[in-house]
């Protein structure tokens, strides 16, 4: 125990000291190699210019190196794997992609992913917007927003465990402890095994992500709503617009770019959805999505690195354009203000 703590302490000291040493040392070396107080003015000026060109790279260097090792190299490796057989020895061309195209599970996963994409970002953004508007004028609005924001702090697995209790099913004759079944039986209905209802079970899983992400949408959109000039709303009021018209003609257009950023951020998240499905159903009862399918092929049943990698590449290609657009939009937003 003591040894572990000491070991951790030593590691931290070494890491932080190493970073400090690197930045200080490399800077010192640079100053030494190209001294600013050179003999004649011309070379001093030249040395300063060289310093200015090199210094950013010295500071960026470690980050760039880590990024390449942990991000760029794995991408290249995955692309390479996706063109090879299950063990990664034999080049098989596009066979893995061709397999995926005809595979029922893959098609189902794509379908489910699209379903998630269609429902979750829209629902989170819409609910976030409505909650943000409704809580804006209330004295307890901030408390409400904090409560709605809280699930964001819960891990997907943790949230799934909570919701497993919501959807819990007990056999006939036993008391239903799941709140959903408790409500259903209270109103005289029959208890259901919610997470195994084909097709609809997808929506029960989506509800969990909506529960988690609505707080995110609410907080961002509430901040944007605060930024709307109050007098444009007053002018619209005098111009005879009712509350709904003010909402969709005056408020929403003024925070349109923020709505898009929230929407796309959640979209990227949804494309990578994995934990909830794994925890709730483990892809059973037709709830599989691409990330779970990839995981299954890659690490279960002996592992097929080729097919797993091919699915991973499909996910990446799907996420990339939204990601790029999202970053560009966020940059524009910052420039605009």
């Amino acid at each position, binding site marked *: 125990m003591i040894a572990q703590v000491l070991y951790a302490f030593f590691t931290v000291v070494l890491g932080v000291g190493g970073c400090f040493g690197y930045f200080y040392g490399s800077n010192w070396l640079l100053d030494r190699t190209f001294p600013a107080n050179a003999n004649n003015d011309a070379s001093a000026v030249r040395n300063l210019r060289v310093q200015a060109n090199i210094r950013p790279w010295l500071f960026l260097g470690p980050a760039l190196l880590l990024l390449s090792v942990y991000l760029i190299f794995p991408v290249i490796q995955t692309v390479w794997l996706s063109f090879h057989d299950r063990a990664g020895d034999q080049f098989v061309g596009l066979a893995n992609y061709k397999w995926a195209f005809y595979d029922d599970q893959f098609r189902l996963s794509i379908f489910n992913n699209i379903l998630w994409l269609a429902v979750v970002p829209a629902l989170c953004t819409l609910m976030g917007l409505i909650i943000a508007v409704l809580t804006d004028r209330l004295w307890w609005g901030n408390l409400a927003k904090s409560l709605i924001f809280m699930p964001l702090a819960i891990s997907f697995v943790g949230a799934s465990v909570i919701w497993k209790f919501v959807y819990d099913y007990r056999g006939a004759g036993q008391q239903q402890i799941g709140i959903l079944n408790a409500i259903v039986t209270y109103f005289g209905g029959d208890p259901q095994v919610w997470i195994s209802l084909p097709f609809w079970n997808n929506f029960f899983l989506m509800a969990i992500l909506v529960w988690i992400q609505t707080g995110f949408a609410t907080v961002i959109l509430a901040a944007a709503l605060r930024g709307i*000039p109050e*007098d*444009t709303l*007053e*002018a*619209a*009021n*005098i*111009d*005879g*617009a009712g509350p709904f*018209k003010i909402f969709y*003609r*005056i408020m929403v*257009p*003024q925070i*349109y770019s923020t709505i898009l950023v929230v929407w796309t951020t959640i979209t990227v998240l949804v494309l990578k959805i994995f934990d909830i499905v794994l925890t709730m159903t483990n892809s059973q009862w037709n709830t599989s999505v691409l990330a779970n399918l990839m995981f299954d092929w890659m690490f279960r049943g002996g592992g097929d690195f080729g097919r797993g990698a091919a699915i991973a590449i499909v996910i990446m290609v799907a996420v990339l354009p939204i990601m790029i657009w999202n970053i560009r939009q966020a940059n524009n937003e910052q420039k605009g203000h």
Partner: protein
Amino acid sequence: MANIKLTNINKSYGSAQIIKDVSLDIKSGEFIVFVGPSGCGKSTLLRSISGLDQVTSGTLEIDNAVVNDVPPSKRGIAMVFQSYALYPHMSVFENIGFALENQGLPRAEIKKKVEAVGEMLQLTSYLTRLPKALSGGQRQRVAIGRAIVRGAKVFLFDEPLSNLDAALRVQMRMEIAKLKRDLPNTTMVYVTHDQVEAMTMADRIVVLQAGRVMQVGTPMELYENPNSVFVAGFIGSPKMNFITGLPAEKLKAKTIGVRPEHFEFSKTPTDISGTLDYTEVLGSDSFLYVSTSTGMLTVREPGRTQYKTGQKLNLKPIAEHVHRFGQDDSSLK
């Protein structure tokens, strides 16, 4: 045509009373200016008339109908905001036409009306632009166009020129005055802290201080017969000089007020004499700052001045232009 009648209007935010028992009769077609220092409640009073703020007590009538509980859009008023309050995502055309759209007018009629207003305000070639592509003066014109297009009976202006630079302010002041001439039946209420705007534009000025009406009258009435030290000091530029002590006592007043242009110079010593501290030469006028035993006095001389800094000056107020104020700072007749 619409008159506005305020009867015993009070307005409080929590325990802070902003408007204190204001009664006011604004005639139909009048150009009324509310003027006063920051925080005197002039904007709050305007917002109460518009309906954006509710009055705490009192009666508010527009066009002889009590409108206390009538929403802003139904009061027959239009408002021009200090920040213009244009809808940033709508073109100039849509900005001006929004109120008509809300009234449910057919598209063709909206187009006709908006284009007519655009022409009137020289905005025709800007109708498709967004507000951010307009200059300050053009934005202000769009805001005014938004008010005109509805054919409102009452226009409310909330410090509309304070975001413009000095040159543009003079120009827009003229344009608003012209607008008033073109719409003789429209009642206009205009809020400003700038007494020059008040003097130049108003039919009648309402001077407010700390939520109370101090005096109501035409610009020249206020200039010539201010009823209190506050109004006397607020109207006119440079400010009126206030003199206490012996010169005031001689006239049986606590304070006498003399405008800078109402001094004469005397060769022989007078009650009010001092040394010339500093001179501002504006070309058309010179302002002389004379330090006397009753404080710093401002004297206006037409054209250049012959006096030099440090010179001793004997000042004599022109008797018929002296304002006398009593113990409670109100005017003595």
